[in-house]
């Protein structure tokens, strides 16, 4: 069903998608899309998420009645404690930058996708294009300033901690 497909694409992309792109992706003329989109708009009437369109591009959005709630949520997200996962991930990025997500996962022994996203949004780490297709992570300048560190060698126990990580990575190679 066309509506279903549009919903999936809009949700997944998480940003406005042009009708031109949808038309290409779904091999469906614009008119059909417009019809389906207006159907969807009706379908989502009264729900917590809405379909927003300017006639050229379409996206999902949260319903404006909940904007206060979303603002609270946003603030709450930024003020939440980082927890063990957050601190250890941040520490790895600090001591081993530039470091790929894969290597972070390997050292921590758990998946770090979500925690890295949090660290990114909170301006603590940033990513740079890595070698293969993945990204590399490094601390932001703001973080370094905040920590009072001008170069990473200033980090406490830098030499020995770095060596320990290095040794682990070497003796426990990533299988894949």
């Amino acid at each position, binding site marked *: 069903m066309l509506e279903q497909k549009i919903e*999936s694409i809009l*949700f*997944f*992309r*998480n*940003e406005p998608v042009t009708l031109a792109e949808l038309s290409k992706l779904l091999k469906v003329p614009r008119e059909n899309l417009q019809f389906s989109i207006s159907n969807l708009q009706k379908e989502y009437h009264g729900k917590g998420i809405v379909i927003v369109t300017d006639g050229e591009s379409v996206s999902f959005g949260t319903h404006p009645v909940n904007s206060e709630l979303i603002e609270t949520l946003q603030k709450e997200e*930024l*003020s*939440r*404690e*980082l927890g*063990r996962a*957050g*601190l*250890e991930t*941040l*520490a*790895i990025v*600090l*001591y081993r930058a530039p470091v790929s997500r894969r290597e972070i996962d390997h*050292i*921590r*022994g758990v998946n770090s996708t979500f925690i890295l*996203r949090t660290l*990114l*949004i*909170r*301006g*603590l780490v940033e990513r740079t294009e890595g070698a293969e297709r993945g990204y590399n992570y490094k601390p*932001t300048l*703001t*973080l370094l300033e*905040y*920590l*009072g*560190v001008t170069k990473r060698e200033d*980090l*406490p*126990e830098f030499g020995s*901690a770095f060596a*320990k*990580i290095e040794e*682990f990575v070497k003796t*426990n190679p990533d299988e894949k």
Partner: protein
Amino acid sequence: MNSPTYTVKTHVFEGPLDLLLELVIKRKLFVNDVSLAEVTDDFISYIEKHEKFPIGESAEFILIASTLMLIKSRSLLPELMLTEEEEGAIHDLEDRLVLYARIKELSQRLKPIFGKEIIFEKLPARNPSIIFSPDSKTDVGNLLLALENLLESLPKKETLSKVTIKKVVSLEEMIEKLAERISKVGKLRFRDLKHKDKISVIIGFLAMLELVKRGAIRVTQERAGDIEIESASITIPNYA
């Protein structure tokens, strides 16, 4: 680095339960004490051929071998009374095997759907609004602490649990006791069971058990604790 036995093991069997289950299934049997008695010899001879397991696994193999031995002893000599603990070990092994078989079935149900029709979460926002927000613990001291805790918990070489070692060490003892009890039931005695390793003790024991059952050997008791086996093969009557 490339130990051939290890390769054989990982590619063929994921441990002793996997092997045992395979042996039972291969003979199209259900899991119970009868089928387990039947596959005991195959199980032991497999271990014999693949003696160089990593220590942790060989321990598990030997433990299961010893339970199989109990099952087989009882099936060959119904007069043999097992202790409550031994009965418990047998039931536990049967239960484990049934559960493992079920898990294997379920994993076969998962296999065709894994990664087939995926539910995707949305992509992260491309240009999220970034606001520098450290938390109350974001300082060099806490970050170093977090790193040190992590480094501390990094996986180290597996050490065999003390419990397992203890259980394996007492295996020989168990065999001796079992042999003694069987000797009472079967009115016979065994030669010294102190072989060079545990597996040959088990194999020797099973072979002997089989022979006792067939009446092929006569064993005389010299004095307590000393066991002697005497071949009776010459006197086996020939009915042919």
